[in-house]
């Protein structure tokens, strides 16, 4: 039987070879008048190259705008802590200006501002000094200041943030120097340091806390007992509208009208807080369903048929984004963030349906994809060191994903996705 099968296959190949030899180079007279029809149709068509050039130009323009936007945000960013230091130094210069009158309204305002600014122990000293510029009994009260500063310095020494420490230590040292000068200064019995320091107690308490909360980290910390690291992790889901922006992306030689289709994605997310305003976020989107639906019209001599195709692409994706907080959030409030970055995608699976019937697997799509990502997040603090991120993401593949189809024509494809995303995150405990 095996011999017969082998013989049969051999005979089959000979038959194939014979037909190929005779038909492969066979020629047939082209139908008369066909060129005239072709010429008429070509007259009605827009030039293809200009359309592609326009599409490419639009893509690069969008990429450039995105890059400029991110650059502007990064370059113009100044940490809030640094802004506070600069503001404080300005007030300090004004309050301690030797040219100014000790009781001038401007100096009073500066002193009040210093009092309200709860940034460092040095402000306590400055406040005390401004109110006791020539007070002899202040010498007797200097111990209180020393105590206050020592308290804050110890807070700084064990502070949860290196930024706080870097900022507070020099300021405390300056405060110490000023305090020594204060000890030698003449006294003014009309003002007491007790009255000056009394309202500062809550300020001192506030000093021990880190800066303004980011991603509800501090609310989470206040609600929990463990100290938290800069890392957070969570789960995310998305509901997204997707489309393939170039015609012919399913089949390069077919004119099709692409339509949006609905997809979804899910995966894990992880982030690292760079500073009080920015963080890097990445993750693994285990499955992201994208794709498009197409309506194509088949025009022939005898028929004109509308055919609907549905192409589903399943990607595994790795986004890498920078989250930049918009504005200064209040405690226990929602914080808004701009999100931008890139996203790598690997095509795992694809399915094609024609008129709801599954047909050949789509093998012409490139396996790897790189996309630009933009979006916004609203981070909502929750209990138990957790927060919920709700937002949207828009992405478009930046690389010219090439299709190498059966007919040898290669075309660009750009995956476009607009998704609404929810992520439940939790801060990791510090080691």
């Amino acid at each position, binding site marked *: 039987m095996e011999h017969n099968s082998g013989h049969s296959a051999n005979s089959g190949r*000979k038959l194939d070879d014979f037909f190929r030899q005779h038909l492969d180079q066979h020629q047939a007279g*082209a139908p008369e008048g066909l060129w005239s029809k072709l010429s008429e149709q070509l007259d009605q068509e827009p030039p293809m190259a200009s359309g*592609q050039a326009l599409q490419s130009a639009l893509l690069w323009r969008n990429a450039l705008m995105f890059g400029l936007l991110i650059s502007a945000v990064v370059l113009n960013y100044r940490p809030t802590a640094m802004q506070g230091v600069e503001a404080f130094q300005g007030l300090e210069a004004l309050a301690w200006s030797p040219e100014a009158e000790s009781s001038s309204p401007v100096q009073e305002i500066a002193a009040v501002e210093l009092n309200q600014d709860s940034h460092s122990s040095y402000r306590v000293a400055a406040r005390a000094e401004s109110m006791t510029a020539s007070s002899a009994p202040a010498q007797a009260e200097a111990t209180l200041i020393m105590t206050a500063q020592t308290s804050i310095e110890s807070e700084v020494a064990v502070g949860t943030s290196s930024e706080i420490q870097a900022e507070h230590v020099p300021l405390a040292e300056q405060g110490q120097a000023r305090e020594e000068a204060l000890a030698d200064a003449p006294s003014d019995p009309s003002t007491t340091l007790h009255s000056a320091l009394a309202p500062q107690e809550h300020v001192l308490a506030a000093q021990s806390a880190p800066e303004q909360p980011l991603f509800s980290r501090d609310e989470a910390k206040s609600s929990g007992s463990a100290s938290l690291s800069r890392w957070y992790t969570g789960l995310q889901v998305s509901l997204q509208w997707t489309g393939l922006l170039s015609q012919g992306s399913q089949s390069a030689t077919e004119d099709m009208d692409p339509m949006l289709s609905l997809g979804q994605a899910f995966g894990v997310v992880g982030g690292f807080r760079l500073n009080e305003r920015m963080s890097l976020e990445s993750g693994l989107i285990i499955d992201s369903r994208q794709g498009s639906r197409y309506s194509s019209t088949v025009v022939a001599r005898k028929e004109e048929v509308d055919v609907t195709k549905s192409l589903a692409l399943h990607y595994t994706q790795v986004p890498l984004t920078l989250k930049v907080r918009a504005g200064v959030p209040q405690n226990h409030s929602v914080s808004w963030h701009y999100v931008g970055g890139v996203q790598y995608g690997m095509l795992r699976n694809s399915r094609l349906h024609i008129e709801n019937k599954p047909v*050949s697997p789509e093998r012409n799509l490139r396996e790897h994809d790189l996309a630009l990502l933009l979006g916004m997040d609203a981070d909502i603090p929750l209990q138990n060191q957790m927060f919920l991120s709700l937002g949207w993401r828009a992405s478009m593949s930046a690389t010219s994903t090439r299709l190498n189809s059966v007919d*040898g024509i290669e075309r660009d494809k750009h995956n476009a996705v607009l998704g609404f995303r929810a992520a439940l995150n939790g801060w990791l405990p510090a080691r």
Partner: protein
Amino acid sequence: MSNTHASSPEQALIQACCRGERAAQQGLYERYAPRLFAICLRYADDYHQAEDLLQEGFLKVFRHIANFRAEGSFEGWLRRIFVNTAIEHHRRRHHLYPLVDVADTEIELHDEGALQQLAASDLLDMVNSLSPGYRTVFNLYAIEGYNHKDISEMLGISEGTSKSQLARARVILQRKVESAGMRERAGGFRELKRTGGA
């Protein structure tokens, strides 16, 4: 496009077509239409459908000719476009593609010399007489040289179905060969069969 082909007349014709020059397009059409129409005839159900395929194929060629890279032959690129166009037509017209596997059937090629008596037009008629499924698989496998995996992906069928359909197509073609032009050689066939093809 590579520089190695930059000076060839074919390359000049392609570049002119890229610029949308109508005279160049007509020149390309006249040069390749006979060979490409033969491909259309092999895949089409009838002559008119072959005309449609030829027209549609050339429209695609002129739309996408700027995408051609001179990594292979231009004629090979053209052929793929027309074959793909024919397959698309096939998929549209035969949505309910027969997915039922056909049992593999042995064929015996008794007298190779008898095949030489047939003209290309006779062979084309035989191929055209096959049902669309058999015809498409036979064309793709035997003439174009695709393997069963490629064919299964192109047509949305299993590899087993592709193999079975090819086998059935071969059997039918062999019978047609025998009945069409080999009557005078029938005796020779039978003699060869009796001796086991030795």
